[in-house]
């Protein structure tokens, strides 16, 4: 009995030491500030306690699908052309259904050729349905669509992560947001003023050049009328910034060919620079070799025509092709500042976002708010704990000391768990700790009440303690399991702060099971072993 007790005591002390290490690590001193620093290093604080910004972003994945079908339209047109199928019109008839492509106008003698091209090269991703009179309808397969959408989400996360890294944010979180479809969760600790970061996240930074087919017109209405009332399927109408075509021009509208000459991923590098003549800030970009070749060919064959440089769907510059341009270019004018040139180069280097990003939710916690919350949480915990401890001492006397020791150990082990697992402590999490104190001491009450009952029935103290623990244990398991299951549901369905609550509640109850059943028992046994047989215990 004595040896058993020793082993058990050692086990308990081991838990205590290990937990304290989990909470503090190895502090460099024992002063208040040294301990506080060590604590904050180990325990991971949530945004609501640390201060920072929490964002939910929506990736407009339909745009990615639309881009994919756009480039397929271009490729198909080129294929048909190369194989001598003239007069074919490839278009996307319905803007609300970007996954549908229509082919029409194929003459009867080319039908076979067209059909074989379609089936051999496009049937992998599309369901091809022939229609009457040389028409076909191609609908992208659902698997292909979801693949595009998923990779748009993944690529967006990568691009956003790279951009945020360049701002030096410490330990940001960027991950898919489980509660919605194709949404991204971003958490930026310590940032309470989004400013430039917001632009960096949202800017698609898609830089392209397009052939200019018509314009400039003063507004969209006039432009629309000039192209015959409706936008042709292979073109788009875009607005330019003031000063795009010449110094002092206003914002105008142009008709541009939809498929760009080069764009997006064709950019290899971008750096902020200065105009050699005017010393004004500009962005110098370099294309990839392949894009450079394509561009070189295009400019060689189209000298004298107009081309437009488009950034994020606004025309930035319209210029006449004067000679062969290969892979160097720049973006200038339009009031670029040094800062803007730096930011834009960074955005172009990290790559364009495959689809645009909409902000769905933004929660900001200022640092003073975080400090206040921690302070209030700690005060509430201490007040609650003292109240409970005092009551146990008054009501259960000697056994109350037992319960209070177990309670204290409970708290230490709970915090130790938090330190070791790196789980995040949020404000509701602190509330969970407080709730654990209250619910935890219930287990002790159960046991002690049963012990009192057994003592009343005339049993000896040792037997009463034994029976007390034995009978109470099933109820303790019951209550703990049901509350932990509740917490599990909250964890699955909840967002950040609620998850923090579920975590501390669960850890607290697990720790409590250990302390109220094992530790309390050991303390009782130790006490009983010092008493004579039958000598009453204080309860």
């Amino acid at each position, binding site marked *: 009995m004595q040896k058993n007790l020793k082993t058990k005591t050692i086990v308990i002390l081991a838990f205590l030491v290990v937990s304290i290490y989990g909470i503090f690590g190895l502090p460099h001193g024992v002063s208040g500030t040294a301990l506080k620093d060590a604590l904050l290093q180990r325990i991971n604080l949530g945004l*609501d306690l640390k201060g920072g910004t929490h964002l*939910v972003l929506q990736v407009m994945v339909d745009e990615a699908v639309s881009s994919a079908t756009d480039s397929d339209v271009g490729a198909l047109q080129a294929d048909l052309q190369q194989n001598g199928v003239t007069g074919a019109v490839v278009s996307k008839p319905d803007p609300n259904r970007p996954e549908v492509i229509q082919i029409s106008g194929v003459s009867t003698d080319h039908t076979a050729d067209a059909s074989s091209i379609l089936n051999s090269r496009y049937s992998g991703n599309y369901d091809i349905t022939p229609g009457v009179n040389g028409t076909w309808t191609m609908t992208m397969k659902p698997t292909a669509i979801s693949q595009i959408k998923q990779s748009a989400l993944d690529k967006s996360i990568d691009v956003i992560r790279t951009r945020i890294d360049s701002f030096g944010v410490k330990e940001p979180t960027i991950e898919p947001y489980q*509660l*919605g479809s194709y949404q991204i969760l971003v958490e930026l600790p310590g*940032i*309470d*003023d*989004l*400013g430039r970061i917001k632009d960096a996240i949202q800017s698609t930074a898609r830089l392209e050049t397009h052939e200019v087919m018509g314009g400039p017109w003063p507004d969209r209405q006039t432009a629309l009328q000039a192209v015959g009332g409706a936008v042709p399927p292979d073109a788009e109408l875009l607005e330019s910034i003031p000063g795009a075509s010449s110094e002092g021009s206003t914002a105008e509208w142009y008709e541009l060919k939809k498929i760009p000459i080069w764009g997006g991923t064709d950019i290899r590098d971008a750096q902020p620079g200065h105009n050699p003549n005017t010393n004004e800030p500009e962005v110098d970009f370099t294309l990839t070799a392949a894009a450079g070749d394509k561009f070189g060919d295009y400019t060689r064959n189209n000298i004298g025509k107009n081309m437009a440089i488009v950034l994020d769907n606004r025309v930035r510059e319209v210029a006449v092709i004067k000679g062969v341009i290969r892979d160097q270019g720049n973006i200038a004018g339009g009031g670029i500042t040094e800062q803007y040139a730096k930011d834009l180069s960074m955005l172009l280097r990290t790559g364009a976002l495959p689809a645009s990003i*909409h*902000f*769905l*939710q*933004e929660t*900001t*916690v*200022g*640092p*003073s*708010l975080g*400090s*206040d919350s921690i302070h*209030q*949480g700690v*005060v*509430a915990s201490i*007040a*609650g*704990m003292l*109240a*409970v401890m005092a*009551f146990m001492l008054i*009501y259960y*006397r000697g056994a109350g000391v037992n319960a209070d020791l177990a309670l204290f150990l409970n708290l230490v082990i709970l915090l130790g768990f938090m330190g070791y697992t790196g789980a995040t402590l949020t404000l*509701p999490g602190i*509330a969970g700790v*407080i*709730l654990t104190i*209250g*619910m935890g001491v*219930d287990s002790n*009450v159960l046991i002690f*009440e049963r012990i*009192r009952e057994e003592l009343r029935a005339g049993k000896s103290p040792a037997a009463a303690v034994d029976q007390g623990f034995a009978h109470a244990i099933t*109820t303790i398991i*019951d209550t703990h399991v*049901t*509350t932990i*299951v*509740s*917490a599990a*549901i*909250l964890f699955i*369905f*909840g*967002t950040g*702060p*609620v998850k923090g*609550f579920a975590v501390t*509640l669960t850890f607290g109850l697990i720790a409590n099971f250990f302390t109220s059943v094992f530790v309390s028992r050991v303390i009782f046994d130790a006490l009983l072993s010092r008493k004579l047989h039958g000598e009453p215990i204080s309860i």
Partner: protein
Amino acid sequence: MELFHDVKIDWLGKKWYFLGFSLIFSTAGLISLFFWHGLPLDVDFRGGTVVRVKFAEKPNIDRIRDAADKAGLRDSRITQYGPASNDEVLITLSLKETSEAALDQGRATIVQTLDQNYSTTGPQNQGKLDIDNVSRSALVSWLQQKDPEHLGADSDAAQTRYQQQADAVLHYRDDLHSGLVASVDNLHGLVDPAVFTALQQGAYVSGFHFQGAEIVGAQVGKQLQKQAILATLYSLAGMLVYLWFRFELIYGVAAVIACFHDTLITIGAFSLRNQEISLTVIAAILTLVGYSMNDTIVVFDRIRENLRLSRREPLDSLVNRSINQTLSRTVLTSGLTFLTVLSLYVFGGEVLRGFSFALVIGILIGTYSSIAIAAPMLVAYQDWRAQRGKAAALPAAKKARV
């Protein structure tokens, strides 16, 4: 010390009082839900913008509203946040004014208009740095640009030094003074003399501090509502199944009805006080549902144990006896949990106010319902079965007994 020695209260005899009490509160809650305050939802469920601002002096609500109107925010609601001594205000913009295209437009407008139209220091501070609202990175950049210690604007030494200085200022502002600096002069001694002079010349204090904001588009609000409803349904279903498993169906039904009653009264209380329900409040309610069920199980356990031991005792007196036997444990455990939850309500601050309110009401009502609703329901069921001439015994175990 012992509070509940040999209690012999006739609980079932008082069941009409209990029923009356429950009816009054449920009806009050329902009336408020349907006809008065409705279901007050917090911004994370209903969408919109909420900006929290702390003022150096008591905030003048009318002037704030004036400032908001000047900025074109017609549909704003300005409420005091927390105790009056906090001098904090919540500025709420409806969902209409929160467009997903420019989600934080409302927030930016509010900060700007307060600066221009409310701040006591006026337009002579155009272009100066507002110490009360500057972020760490902005302060460091400002110091680097001004470079009062002539360390070279872009050098690493400059950056480290100015970061240190900025941290000192922000520690004073945020950790010690809840975000507000009374005057730039108070920073004397916290920073190097050169930096202090630069701040005196180029910075001011606007008298308000932007504490935080929550901006929720319509889509996220709806998503969260769906999550909350799913979580609640799963919890209740899980409970019903668990109780059915452990006891008989009637026990499960009685316990679930008691939990329903608890939830209804709690939500009714929120509606009566016009306290907003957020996701953390739903978490509190679900936790209490679990807690209330535990309580009910304790009573049911004892009823079942007594049924096995004494077959002839009339059900009324058996249930009374069971409740009396478990009273000590029930009141003590609830009381202790209530103590901790009360401490949370009193000391825990405004952010957790809804959460702690739900727990305070919930624990009281949860304990009450195990005794006053669940137990009488068992007896009522058994009486109803007896009236219809069926077997008189309440099912105590899985095996049928006649």
